[in-house]
């Protein structure tokens, strides 16, 4: 089985998000980058499924050379090899098109992504790749098991779950539950340096969307403190002042 895991390079979750150039550019000063947390889950499941000579795991990233530490981290965690598509990830459509091309050329049986990237929160890439390749895409999944030629997947729905079976190849976007993230061990870190990482150039496509500005949420007014002995005052305030109950 050949598995392709798409990883994006995102600001560490502790990052305070600020912008520059009149709120048009994300301020990268001092920002630490990590593997998108959901992609770590996808990667961990891919490695589990391929354990014991069951298959190989390739990671792919659309990014400039600065993302290589993140890619090496994925190799240290246990991916067998990596591909970097040498371009700034302009938007999901662009990224999906690049990944679809790599996926087609490598004829992977399973493609995994995270449910969304924690920077632009598109949750678009997986289903777009699925459409480009005309293969099933199952979004926001909590469990993936392989049973011979079929794959059984649980996906989240409002107030419950749906159990689906799909043939290979397919693509899924992974959420919590799929696996526990893996921490690289010393051997992994050592071998990551020599595992193959190939760099390919992107294909050009038309631009359909662009971010024109960013905004940070408005600050809230001062908190009104209520005496712990008298929660009835809170109920009153929520009813007549805030009008939410």
């Amino acid at each position, binding site marked *: 089985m050949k598995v392709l895991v798409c990883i994006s390079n995102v600001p560490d*979750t*502790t990052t*305070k*998000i600020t*912008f520059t150039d009149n709120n048009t550019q994300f301020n990268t000063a001092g920002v630490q980058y990590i593997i998108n947390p*959901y992609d770590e889950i996808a990667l961990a499941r891919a490695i589990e499924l391929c354990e014991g000579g069951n298959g190989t795991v390739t990671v792919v990233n659309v990014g400039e050379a600065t993302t290589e530490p993140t890619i090496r981290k994925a190799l240290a965690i246990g991916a067998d090899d990596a591909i970097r598509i040498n371009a700034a990830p302009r938007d*999901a459509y662009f990224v999906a098109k690049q990944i679809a091309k790599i996926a087609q050329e490598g004829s992977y049986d399973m493609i995994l992504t995270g449910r969304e990237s*924690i*920077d*632009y*929160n598109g*949750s*678009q890439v*997986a*289903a*777009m790749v699925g459409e480009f390749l*005309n293969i*099933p*895409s*199952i*979004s*926001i999944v*909590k469990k993936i098991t392989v049973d011979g030629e079929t794959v*059984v997947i649980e*996906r989240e*729905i*409002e*107030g*419950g*779950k*749906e*159990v*689906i079976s799909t043939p290979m190849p*397919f693509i899924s976007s992974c959420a*919590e*539950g799929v696996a526990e993230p893996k921490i690289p061990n010393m051997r992994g870190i050592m071998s990551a340096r020599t595992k193959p990482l190939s760099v390919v150039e992107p294909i050009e496509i*038309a631009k*359909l*969307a*662009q971010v*024109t*500005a*960013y*905004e*940070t*949420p408005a600050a*809230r*007014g001062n*908190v009104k*403190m*209520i*005496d*712990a002995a008298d*929660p009835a005052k*809170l*109920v009153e305030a*929520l*009813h007549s002042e*805030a009008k939410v*109950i």
Partner: protein
Amino acid sequence: MSVLVYVENAEGKFKKSTFEAVSYAKEVADKLNTNLVAISIGNVADATLADLGKYGANKVLFVSNEKLKTFVNQAYASIIASAAKTEDAKVVVLSASFSGKGLAPRIAVKLEAGLVDGAVELPEMTDGKFNVKKNAFSGKAFAHVELTSDRKIISLVPNSYKVVEKPVTAEITAFESTAAESDFQVMVREIVRASDKVSLPDAELVVSAGRGLKGPENWGMIEELANLLGAATACSKPVSDAGWRPHEEHVGQTGIAVSPNLYIAIGISGAIQHLAGVSSSKVIVVINKDAEAPFFKVADYGIVGDAFEVVPKLIEAIRKFKEAA
């Protein structure tokens, strides 16, 4: 020209988030001086379809057959995309529900249309531009995205747009499924729905608790409070990591982002990753025994106190309030 809205149903019924999408799409259609067309897939009764007129749908297309009874991502995307072409829809609107998130990107590729996933406001249409505000950085910011393609797709975050009644008479018409055989590769084996639970992503009220609750055995009062309010229950990440609560209740940057009218946080410190997921809540109440807890800085109302004393009193107070009402 038209605006098309996909009206998602759950077991034949439309949820509030569907009506929100219809109201949003109607406003877009009005701004563009055009009609609103709705497309429904699956088994929905005619009377239920006709109800969509209440929110401004001029025409309702429906596709209903055995194979489409359950959600099949690829097939549904094919049908919605072909309806968009037939109706010459310039804008397609969906709810950013779990299914909607799987559909919108496929439709975008089929129509070569720019997509805004997770819109929180109406598009701004000035000087021939089309700009949509959406969540970014997991609730830590918003992005304004300009769509430059001819057709545009928008998925709308549940509970971020009001349901507005704009009654018209809806014309109900059958639409021929255009799904290909290859669109039916996946099979739904089982659907499990907890019918008595409020679903978290589209909840109007949320009661959430963190590690301050000490253990899963103490969630009884959290559930009681939630039931009393008709609220969904949620938790912080360490709580779901420890298995005290299911993963789907975990709110935050790496969990569900919520935008309820009221978010009550009990025994949650207010770490940056947690706050990211709740920043679009309209009103935030924090109950924490530590007056220095960071969560108080972003709260509208706060109570410093021990949850095990405050919550039972709060339950009592709400009970009295409900009885009086």
